[in-house]
Each structure stands twice: as C-alpha cells, then as structure tokens.
C-alpha cells in the first residue's frame, strides 16, 4: 500500500449519514475510555521523566482528531470526534473537567484545518501526519497559557515542540496505521474506502 493509497479524486458527499455519526461517536467514546486509562496508568509512570519529557506521549490524546476523519472522510469529523471524546472524559471524571471541552475544541480544530486545507480529498499518511501536528499545535496553544504560563520560556518551547512532534508521530502516523489495521479486518465496509 503506497503512502497515498488514501487519495481520492473527489471528496465524498459532505452529508453525514447516521452510520457516520454513530461510528465516530462510538470511536470517540472508546478513546475517551482509553484516555482515562492512559492518564491513570501510563502518564503517571512517565511523570518522573520530568518536564518537558513526559509530553512525548501526549499525542495519544489527539488520536480521535486523526482517526475519525480518516474513517468517515467528512468535514467536521476531527472537531466532532475530539469534542465527544472530551465529553466522555468529563463524564468519566477527568480531573480537567470543563476545561477538557476547551482543549478538545482547539485540538480538533487544529486537525480540522489541515484536512480542510486539502479540501477533504487526501487522507494519506503525509496529510495524517500534518493533521496530527496540527492537533498538537492546538494542544500547545491551549496548554501553555492555561497550565504553564509561569514556566521559563525554554520549557514552554520544549513542551510545545514535544506536543506537536508527539501529535505527528502518535496521532498522525499511529492513527493512520490504526485505521489501516481496522480496514484490513473488514470492519470499515460501511465506508466507501473500506470495501
């Protein structure tokens, strides 16, 4: 499978079918649960790495913003998926509460802009990588003023840089690989590119 196997001549119809809505929402719910486990079991073990190195795994929180658009290929998928995942995190008792809605919004918007820039026509690994970095940029734009405004400038740059790189690697390339495995199982046959 080439890097641009996901490229299509034209964008699919922009209208969301019920199956698009429910599959994206269910995936976001699944990731909301994964986020909870990620915070509780993985994040805490990386804390001793210290600032800013723990942020190498922050890309996991951006997964829905890349995975959902790669599957349904509709405008708004990144934003919708990140917002639903954020709501699920709130319901599961994320310590960041209401603020998760803000960060979910800017993260989803970061990826959405990238997919919008290619007119929702290209869903290859390169676009996925840039979308992951876009979501990471949104994450950094939220986190630095809200949680790390006092940090020394070099640390702020380090956190932002790692969030963007981790977004590109874990959410971007990792998300693309995940969708490829899902497609191979035949689970995505309800979607045009899954057949």
């Amino acid at each position, binding site marked *: 499978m080439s890097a641009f196997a996901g490229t299509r001549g034209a964008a699919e119809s922009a209208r*969301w*079918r*019920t*199956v698009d*809505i*429910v*599959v994206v*929402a*269910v*995936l*976001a*719910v*699944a990731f*909301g*649960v*994964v986020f909870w486990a990620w915070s509780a079991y993985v994040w*805490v073990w990386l*804390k001793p790495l210290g*600032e800013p190195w723990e942020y190498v795994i922050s890309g996991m929180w951006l997964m829905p913003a890349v995975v959902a658009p790669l599957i349904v290929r509709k405008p708004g998928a990144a934003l*919708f998926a990140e917002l*639903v995942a954020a*709501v*699920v995190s*709130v*319901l*599961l*008792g*994320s*310590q*960041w*509460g*209401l*603020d998760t809605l*803000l960060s979910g919004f800017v993260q989803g918007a970061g990826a959405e802009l990238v997919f919008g820039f290619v007119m929702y026509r290209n869903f290859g690994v390169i676009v996925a990588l840039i979308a992951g970095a876009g979501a990471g940029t949104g994450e950094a734009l939220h986190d630095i*003023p*809200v*949680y*790390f*405004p*006092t*940090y*020394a*400038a070099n*640390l702020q740059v380090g956190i932002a840089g790692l969030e963007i790189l981790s977004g590109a690697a874990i959410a971007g390339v990792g998300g693309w690989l*995940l969708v490829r*495995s*899902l497609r191979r*199982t035949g*689970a*995505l046959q*309800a979607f045009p590119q899954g057949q």
Partner: protein
Amino acid sequence: MSLAAPLTSVRPDFLTRVTPAARLAAGMTWLIAAIVTLDPIVPIRLVIAAAVALVLWSGLPLRTVPARLAPLGFAIVSLTVFSILLSGANADRSLAAVAAFGPVRITAPAISAGLAIGLRVIVIGLTTLLVFGPSDPTRMADSLVQQWHIPDRFAYGTLGALRVAPFMADDWTLISASRRLRGIQARGVAGRIRDAGDRLVVMLVAAIRRAERLALAMDARGFDSGIKRSHFRELRVGWRDWMTVAVAAAVAVAAVALPR
C-alpha cells in the same frame, strides 16, 4: 469515582431546575475568569463562590463531594509545585529569592502565580460539578438541541454511542480471556506494548461493528427521515436560567475586576 456523572440522590434544588445549557454557559464564564489572570485572588474568590453555590443551590449531597474531587488532588499538587519550581521568574536576579536550595531559587512572583494555577484547577473541578452534577447527559443533550440548536442527529447519535461504553468494558475482558485461552502471552515491555495495541484494535473492531448495528437500528426507526423532529421532553428557558447566567457572569467579572 466520577467527577461529573449525575448523582442518583440529587434532590431538586435551584440548579437542578436550571436548563443544562444555561449551567454550561454560566460555568464557562467562571472557567474563563479563572484562566485569564495569574493573580491568586481571582481563583480564591471563585472557589468561595462555587462552594456557596454547591452548598446552597446545587442539590448535590455534600458528603460525596470530597470523594469526587479526590482525583484532582494529584493534579493540583503537581501543577502548583512545578509551576513554582520551574517558573521563569526564578531566573530573574533582580528579584529577591524567598528560598534557595543550592542553584535553585524561588521568588515571590513564582509562588503567587503557582498558587493561582493550582487554585485554577480547583475552580475548574468545582465548576464542572455544578454544571454536570445536577442532571444526566440525556438532559444535557435535550437542552443543547433545544436551546443552542446544535444538530439533533449529532446530539442523539452521541447519546446512543454513550450507551455502548459499558459493552466496551465487557469486550475488553472477553478479548483478554480469549487471548489467554489461545495461549497468547505477552513477554517483556515491548511485547506488552504490542499486546495492548493488538487488543485495542480488536476492541475498536467490536465497537465499530456495534456502532454499525446501532445505526442500522436507528435508521430503521426513522432516525434519518429528514422530517423535523419534535421534542419528547420540552425544556423551557425561564427566569431561573437568565438569572443563573447573569449572576455567574457578574461574579466572574467581579472576581477579576474588584480591587484586592
């Protein structure tokens, strides 16, 4: 222990009669007020306001509140400590050091801003409780559709998806059991990571299949008929809603603007 899941034992009170969309708008004004400034007096004022609202008007049983806020503890302590230790202000030699351990200096502005950030997390936790505590996700979806006119298919599609969450936990247990039965054992750190990834893919496949069946069932009942939907539970905006938003916004402005 969930911070936001509604309590079954919520008693009717002022905030439970306010539409969820109004509570969300009101809560957002406090969230914004808490994150726009680094003066600790602002979050202190908001914590007091939130505590008053929680006790007087939320209807939430107060003895369950500490347990719900417990997950916040680690975040508050680590953010406060790191914000003070790693502050850029500490490197400013023109500021007197309040404390110094070898090369590490701590300055007064660093402590003040660090406390503001720790308190900011408490404001977020209490506000979340006030917004999501008094009612369940279904009521929130009803309210967002009726008051903010978010597209109803997305709101109710998401509610349907939320109901799938408990099945995912069952799937996870089942996947683990069947892998054990087949003699698949993860060895070493790399093996365990790969094993977790494999299980995640299987769980997502199961979740997607469930979602597809759910969507089919919903469409079979006319979910995507295109006919304008009426509402089973009509939520009307009343004086309580306007008052809640107005008072919350006034408190947010006062918390930021009042002199110390």
